[in-house]
C-alpha cells in the first residue's frame, strides 16, 4: 500500500527535546496534595477523638469499674449492670434481626428480579427506613412495643426497636453480598441439577457472608451507639436486670446521662465511653473472625 497520506501536524506533537514541566503536571500535583490533606484531616479528627477518650478514660478502667454496680447516680462505682443490659439489648436485637435480615436478603436477591415492582418497593422502603432518625424509631418502639404490646420499659422492647433500626442496613448489605456472588455459580449448579436451596446453602450463602459481616458490623455499631431510641423503650434504670422484661440502661444512655444530667459525672462518662469503644472493637473482631472461620470451612478458594 503506498503511503501517500498527508502528514497532519497536531498541537500534541511536541517539538523534539521539549519535555517540560507542563501546566497539567502542576494540576496533578495540586490535586494530589489536596486529596492527601483531606484524608489527613479526616484521620486527624478521628485520632483526636479517640486520643481524648483514651486519655481521660484509661485511668478509670479497672476490673471493679467493669463489674461493680454504679453508685451515687454513676459518679462512683462501675458499669457492671449496664454492661449486662447492653449485652442483653444487643442479643435481643441480633437474635431478631439476623434471621429476619438474612431471609429478606435471600428473597430480594435470589427470588425477585432487580426491576420487579415488589423488589423496588421493598428496597426503596428499606432505604427510607435506614435514613429515619433514631428518635422516630424510639417513639414508634414506645408506642408499639411498650404500650400497644404491653412490654413496658424493658430490655425486650429496646432490643426489638433496635432490630427495626438495624434491619435495613443488614438486609441491604447482605443482599449486595448475594448479588456479588457470580452468576456462574447459579448457572453451574442449576446445570448440574442442583436445587436452588442447595446452591444457596453451599455456594451462594458462603459467597454472601462478607456482605453479611459488613452489615453486621455497621448494624452492631448503630445498635451500640443508640441513645435516643432506647431512652423511650428500654428505659434508664441502672440496676442489674433480672429478666428481659426489666428496664435496663445501655452504655450509651449511661454516657449521655453522666455527661448531661449528673454534675461531676464526666470522669465516669469518659470511662464508659472507652468501655463502649472497646466493646465495639471486640464484638466486631469476633464477628469477622467467626465468619472467616466458617467461610474457610465452607469454601476453599486458595
Amino acid at each position, binding site marked *: 500500500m503506498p503511503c501517500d497520506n498527508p502528514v497532519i501536524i497536531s498541537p500534541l506533537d511536541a517539538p523534539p527535546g521539549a519535555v517540560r514541566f507542563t501546566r497539567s503536571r502542576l494540576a496533578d500535583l495540586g490535586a494530589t496534595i489536596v486529596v492527601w490533606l483531606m484524608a489527613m484531616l479526616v484521620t486527624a479528627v478521628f485520632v483526636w477523638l479517640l486520643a481524648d477518650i483514651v486519655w481521660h478514660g484509661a485511668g478509670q478502667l479497672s476490673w471493679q469499674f467493669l463489674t461493680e454496680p454504679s453508685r451515687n447516680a454513676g459518679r462512683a462505682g462501675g458499669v457492671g449492670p449496664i454492661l449486662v443490659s447492653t449485652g442483653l439489648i444487643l442479643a435481643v436485637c441480633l437474635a431478631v434481626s439476623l434471621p429476619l435480615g438474612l431471609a429478606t436478603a435471600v428473597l430480594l436477591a435470589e427470588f425477585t*428480579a432487580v426491576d420487579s415492582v415488589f423488589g423496588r418497593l421493598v428496597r426503596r422502603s428499606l432505604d427510607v427506613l435506614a435514613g429515619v432518625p433514631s428518635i422516630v424509631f424510639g417513639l414508634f418502639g414506645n408506642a408499639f412495643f411498650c404500650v400497644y404490646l404491653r412490654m413496658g420499659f424493658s430490655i425486650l422492647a429496646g432490643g426489638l426497636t433496635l432490630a427495626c433500626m438495624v434491619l435495613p442496613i443488614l438486609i441491604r448489605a447482605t443482599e449486595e453480598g448475594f448479588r456479588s456472588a457470580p452468576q*456462574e*455459580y447459579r448457572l453451574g449448579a442449576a*446445570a*448440574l*441439577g*442442583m436445587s436452588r436451596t442447595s446452591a444457596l446453602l*453451599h455456594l451462594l450463602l458462603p*459467597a454472601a457472608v462478607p456482605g453479611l459481616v459488613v452489615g453486621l458490623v455497621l448494624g452492631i455499631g448503630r445498635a451500640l451507639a443508640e441513645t435516643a431510641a432506647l431512652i423511650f423503650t428500654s428505659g434508664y434504670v441502672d440496676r442489674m436486670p433480672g429478666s428481659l422484661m426489666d428496664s435496663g440502661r445501655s452504655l450509651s444512655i449511661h454516657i449521655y446521662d453522666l455527661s448531661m444530667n449528673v454534675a461531676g459525672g464526666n470522669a465516669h462518662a469518659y470511662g464508659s465511653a472507652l468501655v463502649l469503644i472497646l466493646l465495639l472493637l471486640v464484638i466486631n473482631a469476633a464477628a469477622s473472625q467467626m465468619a472467616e472461620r466458617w467461610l474457610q470451612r465452607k*469454601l476453599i478458594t486458595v
Partner: protein
Amino acid sequence: MNAQPGKNNNDDQPAAASPDSSGAFTVTALQSGPPCCVPEPMIEVERLCLRYGRTPVLQDVSLTINRGCISALIGPSGCGKTSFLSSLNRLTDLIPSCRVEARIRIDQIDVYSPKIDVIALRRKVGMIFQKPNPFPLSIRRNIELPLREHGLRHREQLHEQVELALRHVGLWEEVKDRLDVSAFSLSGGQQQRLCIARALALRPDVLLLDEPCSALDPIATGVIEELIESLRGRLTAVVVTHNLDQARRIADYAAFFSNRDGAGRLIEHGSKEQIFQTPQDALTQAYVNGRKG
C-alpha cells in the same frame, strides 16, 4: 493424557489396550445406543421460538439430533446458538425475561411439559460452559457436591465415583495427590476437564458443550477435543463452536445457524461432510469457506 478411558462402542481400540480399564466409564443401557452410523433420534426440537423480552432470538428452529453422535452448532456470534443449547436443559428458566415456545423431546421426555421434574432433566442433560466454572470448593468437593445432591451418600462410593470421573477426563493422575486443594488452583484446561468430570459423574445421556475450548490454549483445546471424541457412542454431545476446524475434527453432524429476517434461524443441518463440502445454502457456503454471508 494419561488415562484415556477404554470401552468405546465404536472405538477401533480394543478395551484391553486401555492403560486403565478399571477406570473405564461404565456404559449403561441407555447410553449404549446404536453407534451413530445408524441414526436414531435422541433430541427432537420442533418449531422452537425463543425471545428475550420482545427481542426474538431464535425463530422456528426444528432440528433432530441423533443418539450417540457429536453434533456441532456453528454460526456467527449472536445468532442464538447458546440460547438454543440452554433451552434444551431449560437453563433458560433462570433468565427472567426469556420465553421459550417449542416442543422439545429428549429421549421421549417432553422437556417443556409442566409435569416434568426440571432437576431430573438437568441431571440427564449435562452442560459445560464457555468459561470453566468450578465451584469455590476443593477438587473433590466439586464432584461430590452434585453427587450428594442426587442421593449418593456413602463415603466409599463417593470416593469411587470421584476417582472414576477424574480418570475419565484424564485428570486423576494429575490431581490425585491434591484432591483437597481448591479447584481454582488448576489451570484453565484442567478446570474445564474438572467441569466435564463433574457433569459426567452424574451419568448424563446428553452433554451440551457451549464453546468449551474458547477460553483455552491450543494444547488444552486438543485434550478437551480428544475427550469429547471419546464420548462418541456413549452419550449424545452437542457442541457449540466458533472454531470450524474443531467442528470438522470432532463432529459427526453440523448445524449452521445464522441471522435471517431479524432472528436467529437454523439455516442448514446435515452430516459434517454435507455442511463442509457440499453446503446447499449460499449462507452456509459463505460461512464455512470463511467469506461474509
